[in-house]
């Protein structure tokens, strides 16, 4: 389990290494090196998802490791509370950014709209009310990106708890 500590409260994620082994390992590697500490939820769309783990405040991108294989074909679904990897339009391009679904987004499930879909690798087991608070923050266009919270929603720390 991994806890994301934010000013809005803690979000506890249970990871599914059985169904998404490479994705979980990748995520844990980033957690262990402290990569997520001080990153923000930079893309918040109420009724869709909250996305983070790639930018520092001010939309400054963080240098990631190489992209990983897309394990979206694992049967896990993008339902409310499910955690999945964000990526570019290329199917195997996920690095560090992840998102938490705040509604049932079946169109993101494998095969999705592009033949791959978005890989779910865990779910929120505690703190869904925190996610629900984050999803309602005011957003706007900042630094050329849309749906960016007006006030930074910072992941102060991501820690592994056994």
């Amino acid at each position, binding site marked *: 389990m991994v806890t994301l500590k934010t000013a809005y409260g803690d979000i506890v994620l249970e990871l599914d290494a059985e169904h998404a082994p490479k994705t979980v390992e990748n995520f844990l590697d980033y957690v262990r090196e402290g990569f997520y500490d001080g990153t923000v939820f930079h893309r918040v769309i109420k009724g869709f998802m909250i996305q983070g783990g790639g930018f520092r405040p001010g939309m400054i991108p963080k240098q990631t490791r190489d992209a990983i294989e897309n394990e979206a074909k694992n049967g896990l679904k993008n339902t409310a509370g499910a955690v999945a990897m964000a*990526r570019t339009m290329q199917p195997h391009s996920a690095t560090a950014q992840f998102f938490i679904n705040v509604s049932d987004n079946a169109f993101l499930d494998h095969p999705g709209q592009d033949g791959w879909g978005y890989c779910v690798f865990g779910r929120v087991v505690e703190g869904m009310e925190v996610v629900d608070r984050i999803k309602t923050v005011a957003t706007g266009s900042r630094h050329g990106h849309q749906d960016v919270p007006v006030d930074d929603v910072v992941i102060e720390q991501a820690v592994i708890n056994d």
Partner: protein
Amino acid sequence: MAESLFISDLHLSAERPTALRLFLRFLRERAVQAERLYILGDLFDAWIGDDDRETPAAEVIAGLRELTDAGVGVLLQRGNRDFLLGRRFCHATGCCLLTDPARIDLYGAPTLLMHGDLLCSDDHDYQRVRRRLRNPFVQWLFLCKSLDRRRAMAADYRRRSGEAMATKSADLMDVNDHTVRDYMLRHTVARLIHGHTHRPAVHRLDLDGLTAKRIVLGDWDDTTAPYLEASPTGCTPSSFPAPGTLYPPAL
């Protein structure tokens, strides 16, 4: 922020409005954060003279002007498609023309900038045409013709060049390694940045015992804008829009 961006081979034209919109977004949202923007040729798919103010010329001029007014230095190299870009374009946009090749000091590292067509020295037919088209008298004769006439001539030239390319081998249209070395040694640089070949990569080469780098910029399509970011800490290939800011897509 001490950061310079490098792009090339956008091939903007009236037929590709989506690519034009992407470029204008890139200027407003990404380039504006940088200190300098280097455009290493083939910004346009064709350029028939600085007096052409139709799409996409008008939009590009306005976009570049906005950027230079915001304090970003824009340095422009001509490519094999837009070699007629001239002083009036620069005056209208606030860009500075660079020679090809151009040797610059990039945060302390001497760097050679080229469009890249000069490096494809195995393609003798092309190099011959290139020499003729760069002849000032040939250019003057062309520019004396009406815009409509020039437009028709340029379209005809592009069609013929497309036909010629279809019959050429891939090797012929890539750079010649000896020519690359010659240019780098002659200009005493350990880094060369160029476009033209549409084969984005970072090549390492041994230059008289010194490890040198040849960075090839990527060509743009309608959705992805590859660019190179250079800062005092080094060069990193990147792309716009930034990964993860649009995906997953909202319904």
